[in-house]
Each structure stands twice: as C-alpha cells, then as structure tokens.
C-alpha cells in the first residue's frame, strides 16, 4: 500500500505517513478489519482518499506559496526601481534630519497628529481612528494628504528631491 501511495504522492515519507495514519486511525477506532467483506477494496479506497486529500492540500499550499513568492518578487522589483531613483547626493544636505523634522512639523495639525501616531509611534490606522474618535476613512485620507504635503514640502527644501520624488 505504501508503494501504491508513493506512485501518487511522490515522496516516500509522505506515502509512509499516509498508510501509517490510516492504520493508526483504524486501530484507534477499534475497527475490526477482518469483518469487512472486501478488506482489500476497503484499505485501498481509504488510501486513495487519503492520497487525494493530501494532494489537494499540497496543491493549495503550493499555489498560495507561489502567489506569495510572486508578490514578493514584484515588491522587490518596485523597491529596486525606487532605490535607483534615490539620489544619494541628497545626503550631502548638511542637516537633512532637521529638514525632515521641520517638514513633519509643518503639516496641518490634525494631519500631523495622525501621521506621527502612525509613522512615528507605529499605531495601526484602526487604533488611531478609535483613539481620535474618527472614521478609518478619515485616517486613510489624512495619511494620503500627509504624504502629498511632505512630498511638496521636501521638494521645496531639497532641490534634488524634485527628481527623487517626481
């Protein structure tokens, strides 16, 4: 039966587990094998069904893993593009930290509050919405506004960012 299962599930250890689990279940359920009129058919149908379950599960897991891997590759590609656009001469700006801090400070009050809670304090948008008693849509909109404004402010302060953030 193990060899039969292995023809389908490929790996010997998986075939062994399937057959062992079947016999373990039969033993635990105290099923009297000899009472089955066609023992051979019963065992092979059980192994077949277990192999089908195994293959179905494996296929789903593999497909999901492949999809995640595809997303990861796409994310790496766009990160690569972003970093290529990043001009390291930007760091010749003598006090870039202060420029960035000032840019955050210059955001409208509500917008800054939400941005700092999310990006600096690391709070989830849902938590911020609950804390400030506003809708999650408002948080999302304010975050989008914050990014847009920061982009504009930083562009004005650091001419090189015109290319970086275009």
């Amino acid at each position: 039966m193990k060899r039969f299962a292995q023809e389908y599930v490929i790996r010997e250890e998986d075939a062994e587990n399937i057959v062992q689990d079947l016999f373990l279940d039969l033993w635990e359920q105290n099923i009297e094998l000899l009472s089955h009129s066609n023992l051979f058919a019963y065992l092979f149908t059980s192994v077949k069904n277990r192999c089908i379950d195994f293959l179905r599960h494996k296929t789903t897991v593999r497909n999901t893993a492949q999809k995640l891997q595809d997303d990861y590759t796409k994310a790496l590609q766009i990160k690569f593009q972003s970093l290529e656009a990043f001009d390291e001469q930007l760091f010749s700006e003598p006090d870039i930290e202060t420029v960035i801090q000032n840019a955050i400070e210059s955001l409208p009050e509500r917008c800054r509050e939400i941005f700092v809670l999310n990006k600096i304090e690391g709070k989830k948008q849902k938590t911020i919405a609950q804390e400030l008693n506003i809708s999650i849509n408002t948080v999302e909109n304010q975050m989008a506004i914050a990014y847009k404004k920061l982009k504009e402010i930083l562009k004005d302060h650091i001419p090189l960012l015109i290319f970086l953030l275009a």
Partner: protein
Amino acid sequence: MEEKLPKYFSGELEQSDISKLLNEVGNDELLQKEFVGMQNVHALIQLPQLPNDEQEGRRGFQLS
C-alpha cells in the same frame, strides 16, 4: 488604487489587496511613479532619530 498606498506603507494592507496593488503598479506607469515617490518619502522620514533607537541598537548588538 492610489488610495491604497498609505495603507501599504503602514503594513496594514490585506495580502489580497497587496497582490492587486503590486499588479497594478506593474501595469500603470502613473501609479508606479506615485509608488516610487511615496516609497522614497517613506524612507526619508525614517531618518530622524527616534527615542528607542539606542536601546534597539544595544539589544541588536547583544543578540549578535
């Protein structure tokens, strides 16, 4: 799709939405530009020092 970008950079987008967004970024040049811009703003705002940085650095050093 553009409205999904802040959530993506906050790490709060569902996996299915991440897939859709990344697909769209690959096919839409304008969205791609927007992504690159936001990615770089996001990276820049990580530069200022945060209160826990020193503690985290020490922990990382001790672990390694």
